[in-house]
Protein backbone atom coordinates (compact mmCIF):
# COMPACT_ATOMS: atom_id res chain seq x y z
CA UNK A 1 0.00 0.00 0.00
CA UNK A 2 1.11 3.49 -0.74
CA UNK A 3 0.09 6.47 1.32
CA UNK A 4 -2.03 9.32 0.01
CA UNK A 5 -0.05 11.72 -2.12
CA UNK A 6 2.59 9.16 -3.11
CA UNK A 7 3.37 7.72 -6.55
CA UNK A 8 4.85 4.39 -7.52
CA UNK A 9 6.53 3.27 -10.71
CA UNK A 10 5.56 3.04 -13.45
CA UNK A 11 3.88 6.46 -13.23
CA UNK A 12 0.43 6.77 -14.70
CA UNK A 13 -0.78 10.13 -15.93
CA UNK A 14 -4.05 9.86 -14.02
CA UNK A 15 -2.23 9.16 -10.76
CA UNK A 16 0.17 12.05 -11.25
CA UNK A 17 -2.71 14.43 -11.95
CA UNK A 18 -4.61 13.17 -8.93
CA UNK A 19 -1.64 13.69 -6.61
CA UNK A 20 -0.92 17.15 -8.02
CA UNK A 21 -4.56 18.15 -7.69
CA UNK A 22 -4.67 16.85 -4.14
CA UNK A 23 -1.55 18.78 -3.28
CA UNK A 24 -3.01 21.91 -4.84
CA UNK A 25 -6.22 21.48 -2.90
CA UNK A 26 -4.36 21.08 0.37
CA UNK A 27 -2.33 24.19 -0.39
CA UNK A 28 -5.50 26.15 -1.20
CA UNK A 29 -7.18 24.87 1.94
CA UNK A 30 -4.25 26.09 3.98
CA UNK A 31 -4.43 29.52 2.40
CA UNK A 32 -8.16 30.04 2.02
CA UNK A 33 -9.91 27.95 4.61
CA UNK A 34 -12.34 25.11 3.96
CA UNK A 35 -15.13 27.14 2.39
CA UNK A 36 -13.15 28.76 -0.41
CA UNK A 37 -10.52 26.12 -1.10
CA UNK A 38 -10.36 24.36 -4.46
CA UNK A 39 -11.13 20.67 -4.82
CA UNK A 40 -9.53 18.22 -7.27
CA UNK A 41 -8.74 20.62 -10.09
CA UNK A 42 -11.98 22.49 -9.67
CA UNK A 43 -12.24 25.91 -8.13
CA UNK A 44 -15.18 27.71 -6.60
CA UNK A 45 -16.84 30.81 -7.95
CA UNK A 46 -18.85 32.99 -5.59
CA UNK A 47 -21.81 35.24 -6.14
CA UNK A 48 -23.84 37.24 -3.65
CA UNK A 49 -27.32 35.92 -2.92
CA UNK A 50 -28.09 39.02 -0.87
CA UNK A 51 -26.11 41.94 0.51
CA UNK A 52 -25.73 41.15 4.24
CA UNK A 53 -27.85 43.45 6.41
CA UNK A 54 -25.05 43.64 8.98
CA UNK A 55 -22.38 44.64 6.45
CA UNK A 56 -21.58 47.90 8.24
CA UNK A 57 -20.11 45.82 11.06
CA UNK A 58 -17.74 44.08 8.65
CA UNK A 59 -14.33 45.52 7.73
CA UNK A 60 -14.47 47.94 4.80
CA UNK A 61 -12.16 45.66 2.83
CA UNK A 62 -14.98 43.12 3.02
CA UNK A 63 -17.33 45.66 1.40
CA UNK A 64 -15.12 45.61 -1.67
CA UNK A 65 -15.32 41.80 -1.77
CA UNK A 66 -19.10 42.02 -1.52
CA UNK A 67 -19.23 44.53 -4.36
CA UNK A 68 -17.18 42.36 -6.73
CA UNK A 69 -19.65 39.48 -6.38
CA UNK A 70 -22.79 41.50 -7.12
CA UNK A 71 -23.21 40.80 -10.82
CA UNK A 72 -21.58 37.50 -11.61
CA UNK A 73 -19.71 34.62 -9.96
CA UNK A 74 -16.00 35.23 -9.41
CA UNK A 75 -13.19 33.01 -8.19
CA UNK A 76 -11.01 34.01 -5.27
CA UNK A 77 -8.22 34.83 -7.73
CA UNK A 78 -10.55 37.08 -9.71
CA UNK A 79 -11.74 38.83 -6.54
CA UNK A 80 -8.11 39.31 -5.52
CA UNK A 81 -7.29 40.84 -8.90
CA UNK A 82 -10.17 43.31 -8.56
CA UNK A 83 -9.69 44.27 -4.94
CA UNK A 84 -5.94 43.94 -4.46
CA UNK A 85 -6.58 41.88 -1.30
CA UNK A 86 -4.67 38.73 -0.39
CA UNK A 87 -6.49 35.50 -1.23
CA UNK A 88 -6.29 34.32 2.38
CA UNK A 89 -8.01 37.51 3.59
CA UNK A 90 -10.69 37.06 0.92
CA UNK A 91 -11.21 33.45 2.02
CA UNK A 92 -11.88 34.68 5.54
CA UNK A 93 -14.43 37.22 4.33
CA UNK A 94 -16.15 34.62 2.18
CA UNK A 95 -16.60 32.42 5.24
CA UNK A 96 -18.16 35.34 7.11
CA UNK A 97 -20.52 36.13 4.25
CA UNK A 98 -21.42 32.47 3.75
CA UNK A 99 -22.17 32.09 7.46
CA UNK A 100 -24.74 34.85 6.98
CA UNK A 101 -26.40 32.81 4.21
CA UNK A 102 -25.67 35.53 1.68
CA UNK A 103 -23.43 33.63 -0.71
CA UNK A 104 -23.89 31.15 -3.55
CA UNK A 105 -20.98 28.92 -4.55
CA UNK A 106 -20.46 27.35 -7.96
CA UNK A 107 -17.85 24.79 -9.07
CA UNK A 108 -15.94 25.62 -12.24
CA UNK A 109 -12.81 24.36 -14.01
CA UNK A 110 -9.62 26.11 -12.94
CA UNK A 111 -8.76 29.18 -14.99
CA UNK A 112 -5.59 31.28 -15.04
CA UNK A 113 -5.54 34.11 -12.53
CA UNK A 114 -6.47 37.41 -14.21
CA UNK A 115 -4.28 40.49 -14.23
CA UNK A 116 -5.03 43.03 -11.49
CA UNK A 117 -7.42 45.82 -12.42
CA UNK A 118 -6.25 49.36 -11.97
CA UNK A 119 -9.16 51.51 -13.14
CA UNK A 120 -10.57 51.77 -9.63
CA UNK A 121 -8.22 54.58 -8.64
CA UNK A 122 -10.33 56.99 -10.72
CA UNK A 123 -13.33 56.37 -8.49
CA UNK A 124 -11.26 56.46 -5.31
CA UNK A 125 -10.03 59.87 -6.38
CA UNK A 126 -13.53 61.13 -7.17
CA UNK A 127 -14.88 59.72 -3.90
CA UNK A 128 -12.09 61.54 -2.10
CA UNK A 129 -12.99 64.84 -3.76
CA UNK A 130 -16.64 64.43 -2.86
CA UNK A 131 -15.69 63.49 0.69
CA UNK A 132 -13.58 66.62 1.02
CA UNK A 133 -16.38 68.73 -0.44
CA UNK A 134 -18.64 67.28 2.25
CA UNK A 135 -16.12 68.25 4.89
CA UNK A 136 -14.59 64.82 5.46
CA UNK A 137 -11.00 63.92 4.76
Amino acid at each position, binding site marked *: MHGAGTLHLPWRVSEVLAVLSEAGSEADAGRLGDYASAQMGVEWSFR*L*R*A*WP*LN*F*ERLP*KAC*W*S*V*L*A*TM*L*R*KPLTVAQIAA*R*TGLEEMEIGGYLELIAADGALDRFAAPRTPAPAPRS*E*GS*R*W*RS*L*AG*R*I*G*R*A*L*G*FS
Partner: protein
Amino acid sequence: MVESYKVVFIGEPGAGKTTCVAALSDIEPITTEVPASGELALMKDTTTVAFDYGEMALEGGERLLLYGLPGQERFSFMFEVVRHGLLGIIVLVDASSAHALDGLRETLKTYAKELEHLPWLIAVNKARDSADSLRRACQTLLFQSRLIAPIVTVDARKRESIAHMFEILFTLLEYGDERSREQELLA
Protein backbone atom coordinates in the same frame (compact mmCIF):
# COMPACT_ATOMS: atom_id res chain seq x y z
CA MET B 1 -12.75 69.51 -20.62
CA VAL B 2 -14.48 69.91 -17.28
CA GLU B 3 -16.25 66.71 -16.36
CA SER B 4 -19.50 66.30 -14.53
CA TYR B 5 -21.03 63.27 -12.90
CA LYS B 6 -24.57 62.51 -11.89
CA VAL B 7 -26.10 60.90 -8.84
CA VAL B 8 -29.83 60.44 -8.56
CA PHE B 9 -31.99 60.07 -5.46
CA ILE B 10 -35.23 58.19 -6.12
CA GLY B 11 -38.10 57.86 -3.70
CA GLU B 12 -41.67 58.59 -2.81
CA PRO B 13 -42.85 62.09 -1.88
CA GLY B 14 -41.44 62.84 1.57
CA ALA B 15 -38.70 60.22 1.43
CA GLY B 16 -35.94 62.84 1.66
CA LYS B 17 -34.89 63.52 -1.93
CA THR B 18 -35.14 67.29 -1.60
CA THR B 19 -33.31 67.18 1.74
CA CYS B 20 -30.41 65.23 0.24
CA VAL B 21 -30.09 67.46 -2.81
CA ALA B 22 -30.32 70.62 -0.68
CA ALA B 23 -27.72 69.31 1.78
CA LEU B 24 -25.19 68.76 -0.99
CA SER B 25 -25.90 71.51 -3.48
CA ASP B 26 -23.75 74.63 -3.78
CA ILE B 27 -26.46 76.34 -5.78
CA GLU B 28 -30.03 77.02 -4.77
CA PRO B 29 -31.72 73.68 -5.48
CA ILE B 30 -34.25 73.74 -8.29
CA THR B 31 -37.52 71.97 -7.67
CA THR B 32 -40.01 71.35 -10.43
CA GLU B 33 -43.35 70.56 -8.97
CA VAL B 34 -46.02 68.68 -10.85
CA PRO B 35 -49.72 68.65 -9.96
CA ALA B 36 -50.72 65.43 -8.26
CA SER B 37 -52.98 63.14 -10.22
CA GLY B 38 -54.79 59.84 -9.80
CA GLU B 39 -54.99 58.33 -6.34
CA LEU B 40 -52.32 60.69 -5.02
CA ALA B 41 -54.56 63.64 -5.86
CA LEU B 42 -57.23 62.13 -3.63
CA MET B 43 -54.83 62.17 -0.69
CA LYS B 44 -53.08 65.49 -1.39
CA ASP B 45 -54.92 68.08 -3.43
CA THR B 46 -52.05 70.32 -4.40
CA THR B 47 -48.54 69.71 -5.67
CA THR B 48 -46.71 66.75 -4.24
CA VAL B 49 -44.42 65.38 -6.90
CA ALA B 50 -41.11 67.10 -7.42
CA PHE B 51 -38.08 66.91 -9.64
CA ASP B 52 -35.10 68.24 -7.70
CA TYR B 53 -31.83 69.45 -9.10
CA GLY B 54 -28.65 70.69 -7.48
CA GLU B 55 -24.94 70.92 -8.16
CA MET B 56 -21.87 70.30 -6.07
CA ALA B 57 -18.51 71.78 -7.09
CA LEU B 58 -15.52 69.50 -6.74
CA GLU B 59 -11.78 70.16 -6.77
CA GLY B 60 -10.39 70.64 -10.24
CA GLY B 61 -13.54 72.26 -11.56
CA GLU B 62 -15.51 69.05 -11.81
CA ARG B 63 -19.17 69.04 -10.82
CA LEU B 64 -21.45 66.51 -9.27
CA LEU B 65 -24.98 66.93 -10.60
CA LEU B 66 -27.65 65.89 -8.14
CA TYR B 67 -31.16 64.83 -9.09
CA GLY B 68 -34.20 63.84 -7.11
CA LEU B 69 -36.76 61.77 -8.99
CA PRO B 70 -40.13 60.32 -7.99
CA GLY B 71 -40.29 56.55 -7.73
CA GLN B 72 -43.63 56.18 -9.43
CA GLU B 73 -43.85 54.54 -12.83
CA ARG B 74 -45.74 57.46 -14.40
CA PHE B 75 -42.75 59.73 -13.84
CA SER B 76 -40.14 57.28 -15.09
CA PHE B 77 -39.71 59.30 -18.29
CA MET B 78 -37.70 61.75 -16.19
CA PHE B 79 -34.98 59.14 -15.85
CA GLU B 80 -33.94 59.76 -19.45
CA VAL B 81 -32.69 63.18 -18.33
CA VAL B 82 -30.20 61.62 -15.94
CA ARG B 83 -29.33 58.34 -17.63
CA HIS B 84 -26.22 59.53 -19.46
CA GLY B 85 -23.28 60.04 -17.13
CA LEU B 86 -25.03 58.51 -14.14
CA LEU B 87 -22.70 57.19 -11.44
CA GLY B 88 -25.35 55.53 -9.36
CA ILE B 89 -28.71 55.62 -7.64
CA ILE B 90 -29.73 56.08 -4.01
CA VAL B 91 -33.25 54.79 -3.39
CA LEU B 92 -34.75 56.51 -0.36
CA VAL B 93 -37.36 54.83 1.79
CA ASP B 94 -39.47 56.87 4.22
CA ALA B 95 -39.50 54.83 7.44
CA SER B 96 -42.14 57.13 8.93
CA SER B 97 -44.62 56.29 6.17
CA ALA B 98 -47.21 53.58 6.63
CA HIS B 99 -46.78 52.82 2.93
CA ALA B 100 -42.97 52.71 2.83
CA LEU B 101 -42.82 49.23 1.33
CA ASP B 102 -45.49 49.99 -1.25
CA GLY B 103 -43.40 52.90 -2.49
CA LEU B 104 -40.25 50.81 -2.59
CA ARG B 105 -42.07 48.02 -4.40
CA GLU B 106 -43.17 50.42 -7.14
CA THR B 107 -39.70 51.94 -7.41
CA LEU B 108 -38.10 48.50 -7.77
CA LYS B 109 -40.63 47.53 -10.40
CA THR B 110 -40.29 50.79 -12.32
CA TYR B 111 -36.49 50.86 -12.33
CA ALA B 112 -35.69 47.14 -12.24
CA LYS B 113 -33.73 47.26 -15.48
CA GLU B 114 -31.60 50.21 -14.37
CA LEU B 115 -31.04 48.74 -10.91
CA GLU B 116 -29.71 45.51 -12.39
CA HIS B 117 -26.85 47.34 -14.05
CA LEU B 118 -26.06 50.45 -12.03
CA PRO B 119 -24.42 50.85 -8.62
CA TRP B 120 -27.21 51.55 -6.12
CA LEU B 121 -28.27 51.26 -2.53
CA ILE B 122 -31.36 51.60 -0.39
CA ALA B 123 -31.29 54.32 2.29
CA VAL B 124 -33.96 54.05 4.97
CA ASN B 125 -34.61 57.60 6.13
CA LYS B 126 -36.63 59.08 9.01
CA ALA B 127 -36.23 55.98 11.16
CA ARG B 128 -36.54 56.33 14.93
CA ASP B 129 -34.12 53.46 15.53
CA SER B 130 -31.98 51.16 13.39
CA ALA B 131 -35.17 50.11 11.58
CA ASP B 132 -34.11 46.46 11.55
CA SER B 133 -37.55 45.10 10.78
CA LEU B 134 -38.07 47.54 7.91
CA ARG B 135 -34.61 46.78 6.53
CA ARG B 136 -35.41 43.05 6.66
CA ALA B 137 -38.67 43.72 4.83
CA CYS B 138 -36.74 45.71 2.20
CA GLN B 139 -34.35 42.77 1.87
CA THR B 140 -37.27 40.43 1.28
CA LEU B 141 -38.62 42.75 -1.41
CA LEU B 142 -35.22 42.81 -3.08
CA PHE B 143 -35.05 39.03 -3.01
CA GLN B 144 -38.49 38.77 -4.59
CA SER B 145 -37.43 41.29 -7.24
CA ARG B 146 -34.15 39.39 -7.88
CA LEU B 147 -32.16 42.48 -7.00
CA ILE B 148 -29.24 42.90 -4.64
CA ALA B 149 -28.21 46.10 -2.89
CA PRO B 150 -26.85 47.36 0.42
CA ILE B 151 -29.55 48.64 2.78
CA VAL B 152 -28.58 51.33 5.29
CA THR B 153 -30.37 53.48 7.82
CA VAL B 154 -29.63 57.18 7.35
CA ASP B 155 -30.58 60.62 8.55
CA ALA B 156 -30.71 62.65 5.33
CA ARG B 157 -30.44 65.88 7.33
CA LYS B 158 -26.90 64.98 8.40
CA ARG B 159 -23.88 65.34 6.15
CA GLU B 160 -22.10 62.38 7.73
CA SER B 161 -25.07 60.23 6.77
CA ILE B 162 -24.88 61.46 3.20
CA ALA B 163 -21.13 60.90 3.16
CA HIS B 164 -21.78 57.34 4.33
CA MET B 165 -24.18 56.77 1.44
CA PHE B 166 -21.58 58.07 -1.00
CA GLU B 167 -18.88 55.89 0.54
CA ILE B 168 -21.01 52.80 -0.12
CA LEU B 169 -21.98 53.99 -3.60
CA PHE B 170 -18.35 54.52 -4.55
CA THR B 171 -17.36 51.11 -3.21
CA LEU B 172 -19.98 49.64 -5.54
CA LEU B 173 -18.75 51.80 -8.38
CA GLU B 174 -15.12 50.92 -7.85
CA TYR B 175 -15.44 47.19 -7.32
CA GLY B 176 -18.84 46.14 -8.64
CA ASP B 177 -19.44 48.17 -11.76
CA GLU B 178 -19.23 46.08 -14.90
CA ARG B 179 -19.29 49.06 -17.22
CA SER B 180 -15.78 49.03 -18.60
CA ARG B 181 -15.84 52.13 -20.75
CA GLU B 182 -15.54 55.21 -18.60
CA GLN B 183 -16.85 57.25 -21.52
CA GLU B 184 -20.29 55.81 -20.83
CA LEU B 185 -20.30 57.68 -17.55
CA LEU B 186 -19.18 61.06 -18.79
CA ALA B 187 -21.92 63.61 -18.92
